[in-house]
């Protein structure tokens, strides 16, 4: 205990010294004034955690962004790339060790949980005084605003669609599915032609399984849970959810379009198999397209793969998918918060914010840029789905149900292996979901 106290005291001392340095000591560079206007941070270096794949297009983006930041403020930037599935563990370690980054990218649905852990800095003042950031529409700040304080800036909006093998569809004369039945038929056709070790439509039962399950339950009119006056009520046993869940588990149990031996594969593992010609279709975000193109060294390109919107059961439009998005935030333990805030302001500003979205296949948060996007052929699938996108229960405990306890993944497995009926599995999962969401 004493060691920790000493460390804490030392850290506090450093913090207060740093505060003195920036507040009173250094006269020549004028105070940042809420972060507007160029300020000199020459000689300082901040660390930025980017999540995902350091594909060439992303590396180029960071190089340009950091060059611009250096030109504006004189500060240097160190970029570290972290895979999305590792992010939670890295943040946990960073907080425990007190050695995190200054700026981090973060999924918008993760913001609430990590603000709850004290991981992110309050940047309300900076956002309020940044004219460009104020152009981002009010409704896009929902995930980022907690008790009227802003903790992150929306960087790019996104949703999920089906990544599919265009070339196989042409070769086997399959049309892009418009109903659930067509989806299954397409998947079966692929397996018949490509072999039984191929997943026609890959079942995702890993940590990000709910991204893949949700379009089907939402498309059937179901939902996970609703909040009434602060208390969560589970909706897993209602007919809409049940129908979507049944279809999702039937992909393996009844139709056999995904291997029974891989019930816990996540989107990353599926993506690797997809690249190796072992998957026909799966649910993922736009970034996978560029990652796969690059990793395949040009063997796979736009002629081979593409996206389509997840269909509704009877073909009446597209199913709602997860309304995701990536944010950029200032790390709570950062000792260079002013520099970090200036960086966030530049990165999420109109020029680099729009380019971030474009490079990652996400949708820009600036209305005029988004309007230009609707006509883009590559992003049409996402723009279409984005208009009906939905979110998971907005509660810090959702991460517990979603990943740690993997409530629905375990229910899916129980049904596929015939240990529980759909009704029983969902009743159990519903009770557990309610307990988790309503616990503190």
């Amino acid at each position: 205990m004493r060691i920790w106290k000493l460390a804490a005291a030392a850290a506090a001392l450093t913090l207060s010294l740093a505060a003195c340095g920036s507040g009173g000591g250094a006269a020549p560079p004028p105070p940042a004034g809420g972060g507007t206007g160029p300020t000199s941070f020459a000689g300082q270096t901040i660390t930025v955690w980017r999540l995902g794949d350091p594909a060439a297009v992303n590396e180029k983006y960071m190089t340009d962004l950091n060059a611009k930041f250096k030109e504006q403020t004189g500060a240097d930037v160190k970029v570290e790339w972290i895979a999305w599935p590792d992010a939670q563990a890295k943040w946990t370690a960073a907080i425990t060790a007190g050695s995190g980054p200054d700026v981090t990218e973060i999924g918008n649905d993760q913001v609430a949980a990590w603000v709850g852990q004290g991981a992110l800095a309050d940047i309300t003042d900076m956002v309020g005084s940044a004219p460009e950031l104020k152009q981002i529409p009010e409704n896009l700040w929902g995930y980022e605003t907690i008790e009227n304080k802003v903790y992150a800036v929306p960087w790019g909006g996104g949703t999920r669609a089906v990544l599919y093998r265009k070339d196989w569809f042409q070769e086997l004369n399959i049309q892009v599915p418009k109903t659930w039945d067509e989806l299954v038929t397409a998947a079966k056709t692929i397996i018949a032609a490509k072999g039984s070790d191929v997943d026609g439509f890959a079942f995702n039962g890993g940590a990000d399984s709910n991204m893949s399950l949700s379009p089907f339950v939402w498309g059937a009119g179901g939902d996970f849970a609703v909040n009434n006056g602060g208390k969560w009520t589970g909706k897993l046993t209602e007919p809409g959810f049940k129908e979507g869940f049944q279809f999702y588990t039937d992909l393996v149990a009844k139709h056999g379009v995904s291997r029974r031996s891989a019930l816990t594969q996540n989107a990353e593992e599926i993506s690797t198999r997809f690249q190796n010609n072992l998957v026909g279709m799966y649910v993922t975000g736009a970034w996978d397209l560029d990652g796969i193109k690059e990793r395949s060294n040009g063997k796979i390109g736009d002629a081979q793969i593409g996206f389509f919107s997840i269909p509704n059961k009877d073909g009446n439009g597209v199913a709602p998918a997860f309304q995701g998005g990536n944010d950029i935030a200032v790390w709570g333990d950062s000792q260079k918060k002013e520099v970090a805030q200036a960086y966030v302001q530049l990165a999420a500003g109109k020029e680099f914010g729009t380019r971030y979205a474009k490079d990652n296949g996400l949708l820009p948060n600036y209305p005029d840029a988004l309007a230009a996007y609707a006509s883009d052929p590559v992003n049409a699938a996402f723009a279409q789905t984005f208009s009906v996108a939905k979110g998971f229960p907005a509660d810090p405990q959702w991460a517990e149900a979603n990943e740690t306890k993997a409530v629905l993944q375990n229910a899916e497995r129980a049904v596929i292996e015939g240990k529980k009926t759909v009704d029983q599995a969902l009743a159990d999962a519903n009770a557990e979901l309610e307990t988790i969401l309503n616990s503190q």
Partner: protein
Amino acid sequence: MAQKTTVVRAGAPRPGPDDIPPPARRAGRGLSPKAIPYALIVPGLLVIAVLTFYPLYQVVTMAFQKVGLAQVRPVNPQPAEFVGWDNFQQIFENPLFWSTLRNTVVFAAAAVALTLVLGTLVGILLNQLGKVMSTLVVIGLMLAWGMPRTAVAAVWKWMFDPDAGVVNATLNALPDWLTGTLLGRADWTGYPWFNDVLPIYIVLTAMVVWQSVPFIAVSVLAGLKSVPGDLHEAARLDGAGAWSIFWRITFPLLRPIFTVLLVLSVIWDFKVFDQLYILIRTLNRDAANLSIYAYAEAFSAPPRMGTGAAIAIVLTVILLVITVFYVRQIVKQEELR
């Protein structure tokens, strides 16, 4: 007279065993002879205190607190809230605890039994083998024993891969009637080893036993070497077979060794974590054991280190009870002799 004085003079400085020297020693070194042994173990105790007692104390404290990231961070930590037995109550009310406890106990029982039986057999085999062969077998054993557990787990996971694993391929290559009658299944293409609890634990047990047998075998061998050869010879002359020689002579003589090996194996197999973690991570909670459960509670988002610590304590208490039981057995046997 003169003689007497001389005697007295000569006698006065002579070191008497009782009166003079002890005060001189005390004055000179400042430590009573009784304190010296304690002084000598202080450095050792300090090291143990820092490395063992302090973490142990921390875990016990945490088990009665609500501890999250906000409490353990070095920068502006929040004070941890004392919650009494809440953490324990939560665990005992969670069905996950009971299924992980069942997995832990059943696995430990199976793995310990298999390890001891196979280890003993290999030990006896080593004792019978000639020099060249026993060196070869010992080298093989040491390789299995010396390999890092994580590497072993990764390799075994690969071998049992449903699509590309050598195990399914081998089972498929065997004649169908053989695998069909022996294992109740002829077609092993894509057989999923890591979906269900039972197949997962079959793989885990094989892996753990494979790596624990060497230690048992070598220990048993060391014990066998200490058994006087004429005892066996006498028994053989009396017409005893190998089976009864083992149970009537070897086993009673090696009983203390077996007891220690049993306690050690139980402790090791109760605590298995790395191998299982590599096989299934934390996602398949039906197949989790207590260690995985504690890890998931303590470190997955949102981290609840208090609950994790409570599970760790439950595991420790179970092990303590088992160990104390067996240590008492050992002591009793010593008294009987």
